[in-house]
């Protein structure tokens, strides 16, 4: 039976019509493709508009169309629009195909005649293919109401609380002994100058107490299997060597431990902790952990002071890492950022010159719970600086390091200027290229810092050196910079230099992404589904991202994204079921030779191998819910045993036939070349 095909060519204003003669193309399709089943071919200004959709729906009902081809923009944008329109008119949505004559023709060519010919060829291809389309029904799978949140920083905390508050359960996995993330390290937050811990700890306590949150701290995800609605996650709970049922958080063990270690994580290398430690006093949970590498007992077999002094007998040196399995329906990754390694920029002297500090070191310096009790002093721990230089854009906006802007450094540098002035009364210089204070109350904060008397030099610092050259420079750090507003090179002697280092993706972001089946972009941040319109979803159903792991951002934006991801997850949970696109691969058991080539090719780990039993031989099987229909296995199978619905070999060959059916170098009236009949 010949199908009854409707072809609709969109003008898209002048986006398509400006380069392609759309009226001509529609007319051509109606005439020349009539023998292939086209019963109507129209063109219209905006097919995606309500009127445009109604044209298609009217034709389906009145002309009894069995197939629809829409030649317009990319399916990425409007495929759902046209499929839904067809569905509402009574036609199975998968019998509607789109052909992109915008992104693939009008936007990439400059020769009108050639573009028009190419559009015809593409429509011919679409028509040939759609003949082989089958009516498909989406797969419906139930959703497990539990949620996994990876990362206990502010974004992860926000997401966990919002989901837990509405009634379903959350597993919050955090790598460090306590939640809090980088925000717990800061002193004050811009622009309000709220004390960071004061606004963070209430949320941390809420998380710790929440009946709907299982906090898995000092833990890491090691494996993820399954698909949206049904993930099986393996979490390694690292051994704390402290029995959390017995520990009452008194902290005596920490006090008595004789082994002092430089704390490179929470104190940013500026302070010390013990071998048994809680990262900071307000840690949630309150239980300490023992750092095996530095513990005298684990390294030499002696000491055990913590065990001797523990009033509840909570120290357990025999504790082992524990692996648990969780069933969740959705996952939110909120793993945050690492800072740029300032040692890479030798000319700024970090690591060689004692009084050059990074921003994170300075946060600990000015924090009242930090190594100096909040006193802003030089590396000798005693001297108060009289002049301080703060350098913006360290490691950011630089083709040698990171090409992007790290968003928060300008505000952070202004905040430092304010704190230094307030605590020490020192002369403060800020060295910047541009002042990026874009959001609410941010520019007003810049005004405030100007009022307070901080001096601004617009120039990217060339070097920080201790080699004195002019009088007044001996014993100081000299910042050499061009003051671009006066066009002169200046050498400014200071006591202390603060480098506002940029934000970078976590060093293991790529590995973590692989575990969950999501990718990282070139700069290393997780890739969102759409940078403008869908920043918290990923290309993998059921996996969401929130906070700085998606790209550098400040606390308000991280909180907003955490809440957004939570809303998406809750929305999914409330649907109880999720419908999965039926565009997927399926393996014909009879033809499968069990070569397993497809198993490792699947980027979504959707293919499992079924071992031979006495009843039947081994074969590979596609999990329809995990399969995203990429087609890799379809192409790779040497036996041709894998069939891709909506992308079958038959459909693809037909589309190629249609594409190549026009005479090359056409004159605008290309005749169809009939295929030679295969001899019987």
């Amino acid at each position: 039976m010949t199908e009854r095909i409707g072809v609709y060519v969109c003008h898209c204003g002048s986006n398509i019509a400006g380069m392609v003669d759309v009226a001509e193309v529609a007319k051509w399709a109606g005439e020349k493709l009539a023998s292939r089943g086209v019963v109507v071919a129209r063109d219209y200004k905006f097919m995606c508009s309500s009127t445009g959709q109604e044209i298609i729906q009217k034709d389906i009902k009145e002309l009894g169309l069995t197939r629809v081809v829409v030649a317009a923009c990319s399916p990425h944008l409007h495929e759902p629009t046209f499929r839904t329109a067809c569905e509402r008119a009574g036609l199975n949505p998968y019998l509607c195909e789109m052909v992109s004559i915008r992104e693939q023709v009008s936007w990439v060519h400059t020769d009108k005649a050639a573009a028009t010919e190419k559009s015809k060829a593409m429509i011919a291809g679409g028509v040939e293919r759609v003949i082989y389309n089958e009516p498909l029904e989406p797969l419906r799978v139930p959703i497990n109401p539990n949620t996994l949140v990876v990362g206990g920083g502010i974004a992860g905390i926000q997401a966990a609380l919002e989901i837990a508050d509405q009634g379903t359960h959350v597993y919050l996995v955090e790598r460090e002994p306590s939640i809090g993330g980088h925000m717990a390290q800061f002193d004050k937050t811009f622009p309000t100058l709220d004390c960071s811990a004061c606004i963070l700890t209430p949320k941390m306590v809420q998380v710790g107490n929440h009946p709907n949150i299982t906090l898995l701290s000092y833990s890491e995800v090691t494996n993820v299997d399954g698909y949206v609605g049904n993930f099986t996650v393996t979490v390694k709970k690292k051994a704390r060597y402290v029995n959390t049922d017995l520990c009452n958080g008194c902290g005596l063990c920490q006090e008595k431990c004789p082994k002092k270690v430089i704390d490179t994580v929470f104190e940013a290398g500026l302070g010390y902790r013990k071998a048994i430690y809680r990262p900071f006093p307000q840690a949630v949970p309150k239980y300490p952990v023992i750092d095996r590498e530095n513990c005298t007992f684990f390294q030499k077999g002696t000491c055990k002071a913590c065990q001797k002094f523990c009033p509840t007998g909570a120290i357990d040196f025999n504790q082992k890492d524990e692996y648990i399995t969780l069933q969740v329906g959705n996952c939110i990754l909120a793993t945050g950022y690492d800072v740029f390694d300032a040692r890479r920029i030798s000319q700024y002297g970090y690591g060689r010159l004692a009084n050059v500090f990074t921003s994170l070191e300075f946060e600990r310096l000015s924090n009242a719970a930090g190594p100096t009790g909040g006193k802003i002093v030089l590396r000798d721990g005693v001297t108060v600086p009289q002049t301080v230089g703060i350098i913006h854009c360290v490691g950011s906006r630089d083709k040698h390091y990171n090409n992007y802007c790290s968003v928060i450094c300008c505000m952070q540098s202004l905040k430092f200027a304010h704190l230094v002035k307030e605590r020490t009364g020192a002369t403060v210089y800020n060295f910047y290229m541009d002042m990026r204070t874009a959001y609410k109350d941010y520019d007003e904060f810049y005004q405030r810092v100007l009022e307070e008397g901080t001096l601004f030099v617009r120039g990217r610092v060339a070097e920080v050196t201790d080699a004195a050259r002019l009088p007044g420079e001996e014993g100081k750090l000299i910042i050499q910079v061009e003051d671009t507003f006066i066009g002169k090179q200046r050498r400014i002697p200071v006591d202390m230099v603060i480098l506002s280092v940029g934000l970078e993706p976590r060093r293991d972001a790529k590995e973590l992404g692989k575990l969950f089946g999501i990718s990282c972009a070139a700069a290393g941040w997780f890739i969102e589904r759409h940078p403008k319109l869908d920043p918290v979803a990923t290309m993998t159903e059921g996996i969401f991202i929130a906070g700085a792991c998606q790209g550098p951002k400040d606390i308000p934006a991280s909180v907003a994204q955490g809440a957004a991801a939570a809303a998406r997850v809750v929305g999914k949970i409330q649907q109880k079921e999720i419908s999965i696109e039926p565009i997927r691969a399926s393996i014909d058991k009879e033809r499968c030779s069990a070569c397993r080539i497809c198993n490792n090719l699947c980027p979504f780990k959707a293919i499992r191998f079924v071992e031979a039993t006495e009843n039947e031989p081994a074969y590979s099987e596609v999990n329809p819910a995990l399969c995203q229909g990429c087609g890799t296995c379809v192409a790779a199978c040497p036996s041709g045993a894998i069939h891709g619905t909506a992308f079958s070999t038959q459909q693809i060959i037909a589309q190629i036939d249609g594409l190549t059916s026009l005479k090359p170098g056409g004159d605008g009236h290309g005749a169809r070349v009939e295929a030679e009949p295969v001899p019987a």
Partner: protein
Amino acid sequence: MRYSVFPGCSLEKGAIGYPYWQSIEAILPHLGIELVEVDDWNCCGATEYIALNRMAAYALVARTLALAAKTDGLREMVAPCSACYLNLSKADTYLTQDSVLAEKVNRALAAGGLHYHPGSVKTRHLLDVIVNDVGYKAIAQKVTKPLTGLRIAPYYGCLIGRPAFYGQIDDPEYPVTLDKLLRVLGAEVVDYPVKAHCCGGHMTQISEATAFDLIRRLIKSAADTQADLIVTVCPMCQMNLDGFQNAMNRYFKTDYRIPVLYFTQMIGLAFGESARALGIGAEIVDARPALSRIGVEVPPVEEARPARRARRPKEALPMPVMPEEEEEVEL
């Protein structure tokens, strides 16, 4: 190990850097290196030729590259002078990247019966070859007279590390290969903060005020770090720091007296070669007082040495760990 060599105009007999060449010849047998001079090489143009000529400057360098490509099948050419090294590596790199430039340059070369296929000859600085191809370990084994007691400021200058057309051999801002080499020879190497700053090149001929200040910065910093001696890798740097040191002193009314030698001369001394064979004695600022510390001449009376670093107070905050500290040279 065999390489072709481009001595450069400054290392010729009777040129300012001839001692550099003498010391190179003295240490080659120890290092097991053979250098084959490119026949009839011409001047690389320094920083002068390219100031007034574009095409001709590249053609000037390309002639030498073309001749080097015909030198006994050797693919790597050694340049002891940093400026020559820069010009040769830059020309080869730009010819490789810019095919239009390469075509034009080869048209010019054809007028002299030559042709150069970009990328055929890779030029390397002598320090790079010694440190990476011979290696610190091999050098350490040949040291018979360690330079113990000598405080040296290692001076790299600009062009050996920047802009590193073939890729970085060492950090362009804070290089360490010469430091490591001198330590392997037994010397005490000071932390010389301006070790990669500019000596001024030809500025002495353009503007004395600018040139002498550039020289002063380097000499002052060496004096501030209590170095006995500055060691260089380039004849232009040696000339500026040594040859013009007295003129600089007169201009600023200072009284610095820090001798400047070549790294190959230090290697030679550590290998037991005589000062004479290494061309030592040709410096304007006398090196004998410094070298007497290591018994090269009659040693003078030992002076008391000032304490170098105060003890760290106990309230001091910890310093970040640097990557170099993590990898010590194993001997």
